[in-house]
């Protein structure tokens, strides 16, 4: 964890800041939005570079096509809206006009996950990682905090091809260091431990670190890995950790179906089979509520993670008796 005073900022804020810096560095950067620029933070870029910002109105399908067309002319295109609209609503547009073509479009989706809060199920993307991960050629990046979101936004500009960048609404603690370069496809061990692996992404990295602190008080050393790229997955880091601890818990603010948990389970099943337990949103729709209340309701708190870990280790001991 960073030695700096913990500050709270949403990953979307880091994204917005990065866009402004990126726009200054590279004139090829163009940003699109679908009438949510104040919420997605693309408004910061719009203010700085109005000629390279296009608000396409409440018409997401068209935005994806326009992004592809601009990319055809050599632009690095960042297209933003809420995650639910940036994925489900335009899945076929992304499939054909962005992924199949391999064009240089970065789909930067904010308001992902349950912590969207009061807007409820219609605005809570809980399957977006699964949808984007199944798309050939698509890279899927989920920054853990605003600082990492800033660095990831800059990093994906260096890669010529489609990327899905998953961002959140909620202000959360900064837990990564701004000195570490962001590399697509590299997971990072945030806290070493020998007893169990917690593989987390997004805001749940912070939750997992909090859980690890509690578990340490009970003598359980949990290794916490920030899996900030879901695709391509850093199988090497995960396999090495699984080999040390023998059991993995995935932790994500996403459905337990097809997201980080699915990716890790698939990779370990092929390369180093160990038990994999998934902490995430059960196979249910979200609902309205305060973000903190929703995290509790759907079992995404540090305490839930600790309970899962204790249960796994107890069951494991009983089996070996």
């Amino acid at each position: 964890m960073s030695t700096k005073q913990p500050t709270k900022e949403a990953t979307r804020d880091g994204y917005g800041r990065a866009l402004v810096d990126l726009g200054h560095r590279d004139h090829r950067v163009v940003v699109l939005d679908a009438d949510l620029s104040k919420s997605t933070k693309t408004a910061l870029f719009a203010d700085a570079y109005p000629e390279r910002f296009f608000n396409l109105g409440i018409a997401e399908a068209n935005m994806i096509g326009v992004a592809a067309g601009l990319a055809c002319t050599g632009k690095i295109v960042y297209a933003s809206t809420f995650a639910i609209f940036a994925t489900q609503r335009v899945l076929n547009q992304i499939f054909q006009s962005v992924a199949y073509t391999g064009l240089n479009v970065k789909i930067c989706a904010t308001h992902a996950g349950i912590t969207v809060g009061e807007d409820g199920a219609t605005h809570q993307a809980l399957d977006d990682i699964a949808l984007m991960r199944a798309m050939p050629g698509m890279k899927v990046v989920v920054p853990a905090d605003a600082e990492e979101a800033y660095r990831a936004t800059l990093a994906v500009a260096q890669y010529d091809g489609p990327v899905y960048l998953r961002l959140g609404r909620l202000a959360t603690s900064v837990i990564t260091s701004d000195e570490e370069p962001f590399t697509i496809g590299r997971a990072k061990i945030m806290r070493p431990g020998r007893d169990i692996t917690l593989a987390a992404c997004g805001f749940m990295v912070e939750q997992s670190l909090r859980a690890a602190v509690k578990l340490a008080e009970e003598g359980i050393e949990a290794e916490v890995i920030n899996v900030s790229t879901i695709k391509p997955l850093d199988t090497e880091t995960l396999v090495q950790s699984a080999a040390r601890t023998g059991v993995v818990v995935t932790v994500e603010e996403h459905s337990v179906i097809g997201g980080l948990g699915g990716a890790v389970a698939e990779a370990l099943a092929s390369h180093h089979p160990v038990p994999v337990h998934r902490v995430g949103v059960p196979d249910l729709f979200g609902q309205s509520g305060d973000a903190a209340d929703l995290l509790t309701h759907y079992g995404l708190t540090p305490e839930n993670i600790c309970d899962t870990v204790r249960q796994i280790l107890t069951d494991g001991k009983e089996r070996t008796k």
Partner: protein
Amino acid sequence: MLSTASSAGREAYRDLEKRARVIRRHIVNMIAEAGSGHPGGSLSAVEILTTLYFGVMKIDPKVPDDPERDRFILSKGHAAPALYATLAERGYFAVETLSSLRRLGSPLQGHPDMRKVPGVEMSTGSLGQGLSVGVGMALGARLDHRYYRVYVLLGDGECQEGQIWEAAMAAGHYQLNNLVAIVDRNGLQIDGSTETVMTLSPLAQKWRAFGWNVVEVDGHSFSELFQALDSVAYAHKPTAIIARTVKGKGVTFMEGAVDWHGKAPDRKQREKALEELGE
């Protein structure tokens, strides 16, 4: 613009007619050999493609990625045989490649793939997406201070896709006078006539209401197509050309027959079609 008044103009039209005939023969042969494909909507678009590729567009097949080139997007991607035949005749790739249509490993996919075929500017197939891409390219031209044009060929049935009107709205909003949509108005879609499946009329008024310059032409008349495309130069907004066409044009038993939307001719039908088209 070509003038019919001069003998040179008449000669040029005769050349285009000949090219159109060759392209139609390719379409029939390709689809017959593939055993599947979409002859109806390919044949209806032949004069449109011929006019663009042999008369209007600023392109050089030897420099397919020239940043100043005009762009063409076949939004109705199922007319791929017509595009492939046109590109091959224009010199983008060998005519012999055409016979590999729809075969495993062929660059000539059932619907166009920009990563496999030189001259194909956008991958299409799932309808409704090409005009949005055209809007993006037209905005890109504006950002780069380039003066190329972007032409997008739409099916009339395709105009039932909501995304077309999202794109039309955006093009009108940004007054993209470097963008041209051409609607292949053959009046038929898979399940019947467009007006019985889902009414499109009044189509011209719809485009006008979205802020477009609209021209209606006979989509098989080179002179009318040239005249319509010429009007683009004077428009301060995007131009929609509604080209009235006949589905299956040039092969009498396919003309106006909905069954020939997506069916390959058998050996006898192929022979008859080629005989009608002539050399």
